[in-house]
Structures are given as C-alpha cells and as structure tokens.
C-alpha cells in the first residue's frame, strides 16, 4: 500500500524529481525524492504491476495575473504533466483501475498572494477524478514546504513538512516540442 512509511534500506539510490520532470520505476533500490512548495507532486502506485512513479509540476500562472481559475495554457501544461506520468505507468503495465494516487504539496507559501498552491492541488484532484484514478491520500495546502520520498517499487511514501529549504518558485515553460504539427 502507499501508506506505509519508508525505512532505510541498504544500496538505496535517490533520484531527485525536479519541477517539470517525472519518473516511473519498479527498481526496489530506488527512492524518488523532491521538495515541494506551491508545486504539486502526484505519486502513482500500481500494486498489481509492482511499479510507481512521481511527477512534480506547477501550473504556469503569472503572479500578477488575477484570475479566478487557471488559464487554458495552465490547464494544458498540467494535463501534460499528469499525462506523461500516467502514460509512463500504462506503458509499463499499470492500469487506471488498479492505480492509486497520492497528492502532496500545494502550499500557499506567501501570504497576501493568490492561493497558487491550492489552485494546483485542485487541478490535480480534478484530473484524477475525471480520469478515473483513485485518490488514496492527499496532504496539500498549509504554509510550509514539504520533503517527499517515494519508493516506487513498493509504493511506500514519506512526506514531512520543512520550515526551511523552500524551493524557488519557478515559472514553468511548456516543453520545446509542445504543439509541433507535422502534416505527412
């Protein structure tokens, strides 16, 4: 299950999943790790296929932009981040019906600004609901950053709030190949 805490294991390899990245693995010695502020990390685990994965994204909404909900570009970016992770799982034998998701992050670090973290968390929840992927746990919101570890082969996860080492709020950009059209 995704709920059990991670224990120290010998020969453990750690891979940092940076903003805009995703990773899927069934390597029992691998731990995926990241630090989240307003960003969201979605962890997927499929107990039948024996693999898991993590992404790390932030919807690209300019701070000065006053909107009640994410822009279309933001939704496209978020969809891309989620689809890359889901496809990565599906390609290696997972199915939507047996996948379980966890969501972490989405903190609102800066008071007086828009609740960017909450918007990111809501986007991810809606995606999972619409795409029929069960959300088993969500630890989102608040005002503190989080450090997250996922052992993808077992689905074990550890998330703890950290008062320091806030990740920088980066403006994500769409990938360079986005929207490329080639007619044959």
């Amino acid at each position, binding site marked *: 299950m995704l709920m059990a805490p991670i224990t120290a294991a010998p020969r453990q390899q750690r891979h940092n999943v940076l903003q805009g990245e995703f990773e899927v693995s069934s390597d029992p010695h691998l731990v995926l790790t990241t630090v989240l502020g307003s960003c969201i990390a979605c962890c997927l685990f499929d107990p039948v296929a024996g693999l898991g994965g993590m992404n790390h994204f932030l919807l690209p909404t300019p701070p000065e932009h006053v909107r009640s909900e994410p822009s*279309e570009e933001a939704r496209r970016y978020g969809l891309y981040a989620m689809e890359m992770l889901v496809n990565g799982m599906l390609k290696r034998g997972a199915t*939507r019906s047996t996948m379980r998701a966890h969501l972490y992050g989405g903190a609102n670090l800066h008071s007086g600004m828009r609740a960017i973290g909450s918007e990111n968390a809501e986007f991810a929840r809606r995606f999972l609901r619409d795409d029929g992927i069960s959300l088993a746990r969500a630890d989102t919101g608040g005002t503190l950053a989080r450090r997250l570890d996922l052992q993808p082969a077992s689905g074990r996860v550890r998330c703890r709030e950290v008062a320091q080492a806030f990740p920088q709020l980066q403006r994500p950009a769409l990938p360079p190949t*986005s*929207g490329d*059209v080639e*007619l044959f």
Partner: protein
Amino acid sequence: MPKRILAVDDSLSMRMLLRASLTSAGYDVAEAEDGRAALEWLENNEPTLVITDINMPRLDGFGLIAELRAQERFRDMPILVLTTESSPEKKARARDAGATGWIVKPFDPEKLTVAVRRVMH
C-alpha cells in the same frame, strides 16, 4: 451544419480540452475513450476527421489507424495523431499506417485548429 470531428483519447481531461478547443472553432465533436470504442462509434457514423491519441488501452492509435485504412469508406478520411510521443520511429510508424499528421502534446489550440482546417479542406 458543422463538420464533425471524432476525438479519441483515454483521458477524459484531454477529451474535454479538445472538445472545448474544437467547438469554439465551430466544429461538432464526438468522443471515444480508445480505439475500440472509436471503431464501434464509426460503425454508424462518418466524421470528417479523426484525431487520435497513441497510447490507449484495448486498441491503441496505431491499431485504430490501420483498422480505418483497411475500410474503403475511411481510406481518404484525414486522421491526425495527437500524442505526448515525439520519437521519429513512432512518427514514421504512424505515417506508414496511414496517419495524415502528427501533433505533439501539449497542443496549442490555434496550431491545432490551423492543422484541422488544412487537412479537412
């Protein structure tokens, strides 16, 4: 009467985004969740264009294109692939199967609409 486009993608979120983009450009949009569901819908319908994802359960985009090109009535219908994949090998495989074009996600609605217009007219 607006031209009808069949959007095939296993992600409901993506289908909703496609529907929003294409209906605002004046097209009628039907949806199917994978290649098999698309074939079932196409038994009784004849859209002007099919836009399909590649990675889908039951029947993927490559299989769908091959099945459609094997049918006389769909031999000349444009088929656009819309996918997160960008490898030349997969692109060549889609072209060889009979795809009309290849669009990489996340798509730009304006580029998508331009491509749709070009292949349908």
